[in-house]
């Protein structure tokens, strides 16, 4: 479970509009911050050998993107301006997640690992990120403390929105303002009032954590992220147990195999930065090109959530995501040079430099 610094909820007890907007901006950054982590692990896997795991991570990433957009929708609905196209929007890896307690979880861009001796594997890290406040342990319950959790963070925002709406009937733009709707992203919620704002926030929390009584997310129907990553850990799909009575007996990791082939992981570096690759090297050129494309994606998303919520703009962003996927798959798997595996560093690069650095 991610524990957030208390400053993440500061001011939400007696909220003003600016504070709530700032917290929603933090939420957008938080939702984005896991995407490079998951993508790095995803593209470090050979899909021919680890297809099931790739599928699980891919589904989670898509929902994280949705969550980021939902937070944008809520912020836009109360007149805010999501800021995505800036260098500091991207977290520094390795490091804490935005707003996270540093001593708690130190995340890094790393190739997928299921277990590591005497340490935390990348899968352990993902599970910890997605761990609900009260995980349904299915016979494997672990005790946890009660600090500021992501769930509490969103609950506070939700309450703050209610408080503000109680005094300001015009808090929400009743006419959809810069909203990404389900026409562009399935399961997206157009926010025009408190109820739809809460629905958007609940979608974020439940897809991430599940509900307190079921691993199923209410929206979308799949399991919450935590349980999907647990499927990888257990090597089996989570399936319902008919006729079970107690909540922790209702599901079991007893479904189809989720095999892991350690030979199907490319040996890319951990937490690379642009400085990892010598200036003018082929690795540096590939990394720069990736980062320029990644920055272009942030710019395209920024435009989309700041007034260009059109199918054309959405498709442009989608196209860039496909280009990122293609580039990452190539550079991490040793194309065109099998002697060179390059991990993308996910850094802000608004100008593509030449090949000589």
């Amino acid at each position, binding site marked *: 479970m991610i524990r957030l610094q208390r400053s993440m909820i500061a001011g939400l007890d007696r909220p003003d509009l600016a504070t709530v907007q700032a917290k929603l901006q933090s939420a957008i950054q938080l939702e984005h911050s896991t995407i490079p982590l998951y993508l790095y692990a995803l593209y470090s896997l050979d899909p021919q050998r680890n297809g099931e795991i790739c599928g699980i991570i891919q589904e989670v990433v898509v929902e994280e993107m949705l969550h980021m957009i939902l937070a944008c929708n809520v912020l836009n609905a109360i007149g805010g301006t999501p800021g995505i196209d800036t260098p500091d929007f991207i977290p520094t890896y390795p490091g804490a997640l935005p707003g996270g307690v540093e001593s708690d979880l130190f995340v890094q861009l790393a190739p997928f690992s299921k277990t590591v001796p005497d340490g935390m594997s990348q899968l352990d890290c993902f599970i910890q990120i997605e761990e609900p406040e009260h995980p349904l342990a299915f016979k494997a319950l672990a005790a946890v403390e009660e600090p500021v959790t992501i769930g509490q963070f969103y609950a506070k925002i939700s309450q703050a929105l209610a408080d503000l709406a109680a005094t300001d009937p015009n808090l929400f733009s009743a006419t959809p303002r810069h909203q990404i709707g389900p026409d562009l992203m399935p399961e997206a919620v157009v926010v025009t009032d408190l109820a739809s704002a809460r629905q958007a926030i609940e979608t974020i929390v439940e897809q991430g954590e599940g509900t307190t009584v079921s691993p199923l997310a209410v929206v979308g129907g799949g399991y919450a992220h935590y349980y999907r990553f647990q499927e990888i850990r257990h090597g089996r799909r989570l399936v319902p147990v008919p006729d079970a009575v107690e909540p922790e007996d209702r599901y079991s990791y007893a479904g189809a195999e989720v095999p892991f082939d350690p030979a199907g992981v490319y040996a890319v570096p951990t937490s690379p930065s642009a400085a990892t690759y010598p200036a003018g090297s082929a690795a540096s050129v590939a990394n720069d090109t990736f980062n320029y494309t990644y920055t272009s994606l942030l710019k395209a998303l920024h435009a989309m959530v700041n007034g260009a919520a059109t199918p054309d703009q959405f498709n442009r962003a989608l*196209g860039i995501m496909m280009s990122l996927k293609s580039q990452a798959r190539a550079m991490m798997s040793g194309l065109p040079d099998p002697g060179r595996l390059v991990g993308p560093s996910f850094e802000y690069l608004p100008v593509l430099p030449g090949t000589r650095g």
Partner: protein
Amino acid sequence: MSYLSSLRLHFAGEFQANISTVNNDPGHFHNATFKDSYQTMQTAQAANGWFNPQGDASFRLLGCTVTAAWTAAGPAAPRDPILTYVVADSDGAVPAKLVDLDPEQQLVSEIWGLEVRIADKHGNTVLRGRYVPAAFTDIWDRASGGGGGDVGAGAAYQSVLEDLWWSEAITSPFLLALKQASQASGRLSIKFNVDGLNADFRSPRFMCGRIAGTIGPAAPGEPRHLVVGRHFLAVAMAGGNFFTPVGGLNHFPAVIEPETGRLIADLGNALSTATPGGAINDVGDLQLAVVDPSRPRSDPGAVVPLGTLAPATGSAGYAQVPGWYARTAGVVVMPLSEVQRRWLEHAPLAVTGHASVGIAEAPNGTYLRADTYVYRMSPGESVEIPIRAMQWGRPLAGAAVSVAPDKSQLQPTPAEPPYVEAGPPVATPDDVLAVGPLPRTDADGITTLTLTGRDPGTPRWFNGGRDYGIDGQVYGLRPSFADPALAVPGPQVNQWDFISVLLWSGFAAPEPVTWTIVQPIFQQYANLYPVMLRFLNLADPEQLRENLPLLTLAFSLPVSDPNTMPVTRDLSPAKREAILAWLANPLPGDVAAPAALAASSAPTPRPPAGPGPGAGNPAAKGGKAAAAARRLIVQARNGAQS
């Protein structure tokens, strides 16, 4: 106006052209005989998928900076911010795509979906424009040493930027002047030269090369891919890969700017280099002269020197000053006196350097070319092709123009290594393209060719027409002056000045569209573009069904969109419709996905054991050089035509 204007900027840096090469061999379009090895990197023993089988067709601008800016009054002020700006491609969409017209016409590769930006060094954009798709021309053996084939080639792209967006915050006086000058047309003219492509997959510069270019205002009514001006025409030397000019200088245009009386010439793709993408060769001080048409050429007094167009050495020497090419893109300016301008009003210009170095306009000063010279057509479709006639640099009105089939530059394939089988014939059947009546040129020197296509059938299917193959047929058409007095006499000719047409096969999918109908199309793409395996196996209907929304989107986008599928643009509208119908209702068929490719992951390149396919193997020279070697005219010259 055009980029050859006193008001212009130059930029230089690198380009990336990450084209895929499996489709370099037309025989790879033969689904029935395709092998997995055709998707792997070439080795010393085998051409396989040639030198970049994993290419994704991306065309990018890398590290391009503005190197100089000029106005009619002289160079831009040193403190003009334009001199700190970069020239970049889109920062909000996928990269542009570089696209061949056809495996049997690979010498007009077009850039599609490029956005050109001028931005500050932090990436803040001050100007954006949509690059109108353009094909390269004037490809030649530019590097005199250090690597031949594609690596030693140079070529030029000319186009316009449309849908211009200018920042409200422009502070550059140069850019404000450019904005003002382009207001009437709403367009900018852009030309760049590319050379020094690197084809070594271990190099950081793999699939990158040098680019140097010029941006200036475009005037209303100007052609988009051509300069209305004075065209210096080279004479071909025998041999070489693409084109080797007898006088050492490649074809190039120049204009006499009316407002300033200056001659502005573009030597950017005319000057050879010592090595690929390297320093400009010293071919001597380039002298401009006018040839007195009233005196015989043998008369030394027939050539009247006008002055030095470009010194080779000294403080402005093209072969001496480091960075000269980057700062000029090869554009040189020479003031002309009024008397000189009168001399050359009706007389051909010549440029000479060291002994044996030289190039001249046609003796009668004429020039003729289609503005856009690459077309794709469906049966029953007509295209209108503007052709521009000029003489002494001005539009030539009232000229009669004719158009004749010319397949000499197309590239059918011999049945010899590295090719896996004989490629299908080109330009047959020869009676399916109808040329409409060509009126004499109008006051702007324009006549418009109306070209209508009939169904060519499937002349390029394999195995005697039984096996699915290359769609449609490719043709060449060359315009010329019908009046012998206007035709260019003698050996000066630009072999590249012809129109390339890809005419799709007629195709009517039976209803409903089942997998059986679309399988060959998908299979061919899966075979030719291994990059797609990073997403899915296009030959596997199950994987297609799992990705229907994304595929439907990609096949529905306009062809101008860089995200459109296929990026290669070699899918006819009729087949695209069939694919969309199948994606809307993916019915099964009675064709199974071939097991071989369905099971293969992204292939791992095997490093060549030696310096690439053995000496004498065309694949070792690169895709374009290999294609160029297949041209009918080259085969005839070498006596290899059967």
